[in-house]
């Protein structure tokens, strides 16, 4: 035990967890901690809004598979983190938030910058706790990291009253923490594996759908091995993108509301569907009754509460995806006595639609899918892409191929506009030597564009491709298709000049009107020392297709809007 103030105990605790980067903003309740940080090697990356700090930590966490740390002061600082924590939590990303709080004797009196962040954040975190003494800080930090980074990962929050950081205590750093109610069950039950493998081995039209759990558990190699042995076409959810290489012959791409034709047509036709680490989001399944009505569904998930939550399945394997896939592959190889034909696999090409991209331009506009495919070509295979939310996100999911896990990141569950740009800054901090691109729309970029100040200041030269249609495009698309073109609250007439905006922040801004210029701008951006904002004017009437109309099933996927 050592005598030290709480702030020092806190900083030492973070160091003991291997923290190298902290994303955050200071404030009254954090002054003692920020003071201690001056004597630490950890790098504090100063955000311009706490929401941005949380998204940066989230992007960082997703790229490195390591807990991302964000920090904010009490009251508004803490509440500004909430959207970021909710985004991380629903996408199972390990993010730890540390918030300042008013002094203990002021708590409950509506003091200046006091907010009950424990109450506020309870619904959007895996765990949260308020420390009540300096001595509790190391245990709380250790607990937060342990819970954020084990089992189904998620967001955690530790609230620290200011006087707990200024007062001294007899500090002890625990080696481990224990929670009787926190049971980790990574090892799948052999009986569940036996049963699932038996069904898989008898499948004539097997299909695999991979979710974010495949990436979280590092199970991509096992997934590819099983898919190849079964000759099973493999789709991914939005969160699973990157878990199965998009250029693999068995890849179906995205399944769901804006899934590919081949994925959406083949899922309902499969006789056995193996779903790995996916929670059957409504955006992935479409109308549940039509999802896979005559299919035997096997659900692999580390979170037992996900089984039968949204879709009732035939059988389950609870456990870590990597171990489950290893167990299944080993059994299926033993059990299957016949050689499958290529007939089922060959149907991928039957359903696949080749996009007509002969016309790069659409009047004065560039076409978003063409832009995104060109972006992919200009970037190395290991480049990292983040997306915003809306049309840009769905175009990116459809047209930006991901080849390896942790190279494609998006706010899949919460659908947070403004997520991608700060997340890209976190990604760049995690992997400074890899090009990082945020595929954005003008609406989303406007929500967190002030993060440009952080990117410039911290020398994190990300590239932002703004697909600029001066409209909240996805909502406009729904209004066009389902509301008789009655556009309400979507037109962004006041969108700023992004070239001037970038310039004002000390970043590089460029507007492109041809594909040649676009490719050149990307190439310059990869080499630049400052962030690059590429403004790409696109047609406000362009739709993301294919699309499953809301309330319909995957089989009702439309290729054309009319």
């Amino acid at each position, binding site marked *: 035990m050592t005598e030290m103030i709480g702030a020092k105990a806190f900083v030492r605790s973070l160091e003991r967890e291997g923290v190298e980067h902290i994303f955050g903003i200071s404030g009254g309740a954090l002054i003692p901690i920020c003071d201690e940080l001056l004597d630490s090697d950890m790098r504090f990356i100063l955000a311009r809004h706490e929401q941005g700090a949380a998204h940066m930590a989230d992007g960082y966490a997703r790229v490195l598979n390591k807990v991302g740390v964000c920090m904010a002061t009490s009251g508004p600082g803490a509440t500004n983190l909430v959207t970021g924590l909710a985004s991380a939590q629903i996408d199972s990303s390990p993010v730890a938030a540390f918030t300042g709080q008013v002094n203990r004797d002021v708590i409950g009196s509506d003091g200046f910058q006091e907010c009950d962040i*424990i*109450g506020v954040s*309870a*619904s959007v975190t895996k765990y949260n706790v308020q420390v009540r003494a300096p001595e509790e800080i190391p245990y709380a930090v250790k607990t937060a990291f342990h819970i954020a980074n084990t089992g189904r990962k998620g967001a955690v929050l530790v609230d620290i009253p200011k006087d707990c950081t200024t007062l001294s205590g007899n500090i002890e750093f625990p080696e481990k923490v224990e929670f*009787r*109610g926190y049971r980790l069950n990574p090892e799948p039950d052999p009986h569940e594996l036996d049963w699932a493998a038996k069904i898989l081995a008898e499948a004539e039209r097997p299909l695999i759908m991979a979710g974010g759990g495949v990436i979280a558990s590092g199970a991509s190699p096992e997934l590819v091995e099983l898919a190849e042995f079964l000759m099973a076409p493999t789709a991914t959810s939005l969160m699973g993108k990157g878990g199965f290489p998009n250029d693999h012959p068995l890849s179906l791409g995205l399944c769901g509301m804006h899934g590919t034709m081949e994925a959406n047509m083949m899922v309902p036709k499969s006789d056995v569907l193996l779903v790995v680490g996916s929670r059957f989001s409504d955006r992935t399944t479409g109308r549940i009754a039509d999802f896979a009505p005559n299919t035997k569904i096997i659900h692999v998930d580390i979170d037992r*509460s996900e089984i*039968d*939550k949204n879709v009732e399945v035939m059988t389950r394997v609870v456990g870590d995806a990597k171990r489950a896939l290893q167990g299944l592959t080993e059994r299926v190889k033993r059990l299957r006595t016949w050689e499958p034909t290529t007939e089922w696999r060959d149907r991928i090409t039957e359903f696949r639609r080749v996009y007509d991209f002969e016309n790069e331009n659409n009047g004065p506009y560039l076409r978003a899918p063409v832009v995104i495919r060109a972006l992919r070509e200009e970037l190395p295979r290991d480049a990292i892409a983040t997306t915003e939310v809306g049309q840009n996100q769905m175009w990116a999911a459809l047209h930006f191929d991901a080849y390896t896990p942790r190279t494609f990141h998006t706010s899949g569950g919460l659908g947070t506009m403004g997520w991608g740009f700060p997340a890209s800054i976190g990604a760049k901090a995690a992997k400074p030597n890899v090009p990082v691109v945020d595929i954005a729309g003008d609406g989303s970029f406007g929500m967190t564009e002030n993060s440009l100040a952080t990117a410039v200041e911290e020398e994190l030269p990300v590239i932002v491709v703004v697909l600029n249609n001066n409209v909240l495009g996805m909502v406009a698309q729904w209004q066009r298709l389902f509301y008789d073109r009655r556009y309400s609250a979507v037109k962004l007439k006041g969108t700023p000049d992004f070239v001037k905006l970038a310039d004002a922040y000390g970043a590089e801004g460029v507007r492109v009107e041809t594909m040649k210029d676009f490719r050149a701008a990307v190439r310059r951006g990869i080499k630049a020392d400052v962030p690059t904002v590429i403004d790409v004017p696109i047609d406000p009437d362009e739709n993301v297709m294919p699309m499953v109309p809301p309330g319909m099933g995957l089989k009702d996927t439309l290729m054309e809007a009319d």
Partner: protein
Amino acid sequence: MPPSTVSFLVENQPGVLFKVSNLFRRRGFNIDSITVGALENSNYSRMTITVDADAKTLHNLIEQLDKMLEVIKVKRLDPLRTVRREMLLVKLGTIDPMAREDALRYINNQHGLILDIDDENIIAEITGEPEELDQFLGYVRGIGIVEMSRTGVTAIEKGRLMLGE
């Protein structure tokens, strides 16, 4: 079908009841009653809820509770092998001698206790299965219920069945 009874063991810490009730609210589970009390080992509390839900909702509720870090063990109690008890305190208006006579008879039939009695009211304590309390309230409604309070159901399984390890 009577409502299901679910018991669970939780860490006896501040905020746990909030987190449990927040979960019910967030996931849209409608709870009929909830009771809480510390165990002989005061590190733990036992909570018991009654909930009128279909099988799927009940399954989801149990899984979500089980996932909570503060919840150590959760179990749906076997309805055929569980004793359930609830207590009712009820103040009956008994100025009318006939009403007073009826009230005393009903209380006596239900093996209730009379906790207080004055010129105008009787306060009775009735303990039993929740359905018995419902039935009792049906009888005394005509007499006039001035105020009442129910504790919610607490329950324990028979024989070797148990919640803890």
